[in-house]
């Protein structure tokens, strides 16, 4: 187990390097820099700009050199300072990572909680109305653009007033709340983005669950279990479900990238202060250290997520040994 973990984490290093190098190269090659805008503003002194150029090596257009100047301090735990706010990137990014994890995590839980029962029912009542309904829901979830769904959710929130129309918490009263109220407030803000992101993810899981379940239910050991006199419910939920759920865990690893991409749009529309909006804003402002750190964090989240999926699979399926 330990060796497996170590090997997987080592295998992730080249991926991290390639991804951050690509991002750094593209940022270096992109026309204009943060300083172009700074030069325009009269209240920013030329000394400051000269210092920025020196400290961040902004004069160099060599992609390898620039990458090295980012990588070397980053390896020592220094992600640099944000150009825009001049604060250390590491102090700004932590909260964003937590927010994105909160959103994607709750969306994942939401989609699993719905996908498994719907998928099982669709498989058990195959070709009946329950199956057709869940088939339609899955087509809907696969097809609806997350932008459009988010906008519909906001329209619903604004018209009914049941939910906030965006943000992560109530800005006005946040300081007066105690921790219990803060928790409740954050949850309340979390509902709609979770439903949007979760429904989109659910479609894939539900289809997979249905087809795996259909395949499992047609196997001999299910007939044996029924022949032993076990109730249908026990057979479905104890014998079949446990066997059918494995591919879903594998799919979870694959779908992480899609989930994070979807999170960008949902965060953008709901003004959710997560990694997605951070990358978008920093890209527009050409705040390179910020983008680099966020991209590195995103890739790290993907790698760790995939690793978790593998470990989870090993726990659920006794046939798999991690060695």
């Amino acid at each position, binding site marked *: 187990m330990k060796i497996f973990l170590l090997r997987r984490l080592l295998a992730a290093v080249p991926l991290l390097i390639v991804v951050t190098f690509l991002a750094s190269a593209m940022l270096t090659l992109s026309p204009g820099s943060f300083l172009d805008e700074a030069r325009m503003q009269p209240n920013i002194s030329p000394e400051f700009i000269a210092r920025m150029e020196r400290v961040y090596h902004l004069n160099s257009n060599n992609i390898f050199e620039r990458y090295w100047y980012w990588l070397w301090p980053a390896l020592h735990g220094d992600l640099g300072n944000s150009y825009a706010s001049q604060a250390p990137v590491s102090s700004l990014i932590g909260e964003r990572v937590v927010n994105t994890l909160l959103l994607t995590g709750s969306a994942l839980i939401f989609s699993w909680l719905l996908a498994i029962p719907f998928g099982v029912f669709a498989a058990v009542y195959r070709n009946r109305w329950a199956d057709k309904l869940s088939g339609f829901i899955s087509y809907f979830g696969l097809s609806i653009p997350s932008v459009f769904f988010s906008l519909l959710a906001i329209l619903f929130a604004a018209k009914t007033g049941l939910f906030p129309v965006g943000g992560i918490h109530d800005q006005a009263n946040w300081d007066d709340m105690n921790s219990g109220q803060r928790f409740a407030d954050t949850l309340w803000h979390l509902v709609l983005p979770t439903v949007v992101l979760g429904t989109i993810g659910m479609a894939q899981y539900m*289809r997979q669950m249905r087809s795996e379940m*259909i395949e499992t239910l047609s196997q001999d050991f299910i007939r044996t279990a029924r022949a032993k006199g076990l109730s249908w419910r026990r057979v479905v939920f104890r014998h079949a479900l446990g066997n059918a759920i494995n591919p879903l865990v594998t799919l979870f690893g694959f779908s992480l990238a899609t989930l*994070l991409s979807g999170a*960008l749009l949902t965060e*953008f529309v709901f003004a959710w202060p997560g990694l997605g909006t951070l990358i978008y804003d920093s*890209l527009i402002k050409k705040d390179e250290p910020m983008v680099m750190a966020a991209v590195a964090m*995103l890739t790290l989240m993907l790698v760790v997520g995939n690793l978790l999926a593998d470990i989870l699979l090993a726990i659920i399926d006794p046939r798999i040994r991690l060695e």
Partner: protein
Amino acid sequence: MSNRNVREEKPEAAESAAQAVDQMLDSRSVPSRSPWQIMLRKLRRNRVAMLGLYVLAGLYLAAIFAGFLAPYQYDNADHDAPFHPPMLTRLHVFDEQGNFHRPFVYGIKPEDLQLKTFSEDKTKSYPLRFFVRGDDYHILWLVHSDIHLFGVDAPGRIFLFGADKVGQDLCSRLLYGAQVSLSIGIVGIFISTLIGMLIGGIAGYFGGAVDFVLMRVVEVLLALPSLYFILIMRQTLGTAFSSTQVYLIMVLILAFIGWASEARVIRGMVLSIKEHEYIVAARALGYGNMRIIIRHILPNTLSFVIVTATLSVPFYILSEVALSFLGVGIQEPEASWGNMLRDANNVRFLTDFPWVLMPGFFILCAVMAWNFLGDGLRDAADPRTLN
């Protein structure tokens, strides 16, 4: 994209297969069909897939003939009527006195410029006319004309689906936007499929170091959260481009990300195909490697390629929508379904003028239709299902 290969066991398939074989043996009169004919027959019997096909045919025809169907050019704005509500419910056939007329609309009377409310100016009425002359347009760069399917006479305006924030007709912009949003799927999938087939073919056929390197590249591309990388790449290329250039850039970036999943599966198929005798025969005849890959191996993957390509089109459509919505895709005044939705990213506009959400329904329809068609094609191409 490719992880939706839902496996479906059909017990009745085996039964009907047996019946089919019996029939064949009984009467030799059953005409033999090529695999493509069988696939087409199965597709035609799938009602949901055919519905998708018809919807797509309608949408793409509307996009091609956008100039003719749209009453106005996409950038023709009436600055006095921003966010005018849809006129679909304001098409009248009876006038004030209750006399029957051909369908007509009243003139636009601004009520409150701040709140952007409008009422009908009952003193002026404009009958709905067909085949009227209006803005110039081209159909597929070939036909040049100024005749529109419908419209109203000059000072009057018809906003069937309402107007956007500068007073442009939403119906016209939807039709013009379809040209961008729908074609990007086809063009993008065409390019990425070509790349994917070629790279997958080369990796599978040559194997060894070539295979190893190419597959590592594919793995990196698949591991990336694509939208973030598309966004960064888009920023790299800057913003000083015409909309045609932006369109091309978007297609190329999307194809650059999208070929990976295709290549990986093609490689797997090529690995098994290249062991067949006819490939050995081709090699014995002294054909070149590329000729064998392109002429002899890749055509055998075609039915699979068509299925995955169809199922991948939504990725391109949705990515264009996302990029244009985020403001780095097609820029105003050019229309695309994504940048039209930008108007809705404002709670006041969204609640007061909900018709700005209209493009979303069209995106949903188009993507759903592609998914229906793709699933239908997959079932039809699967030799295990017989009907």
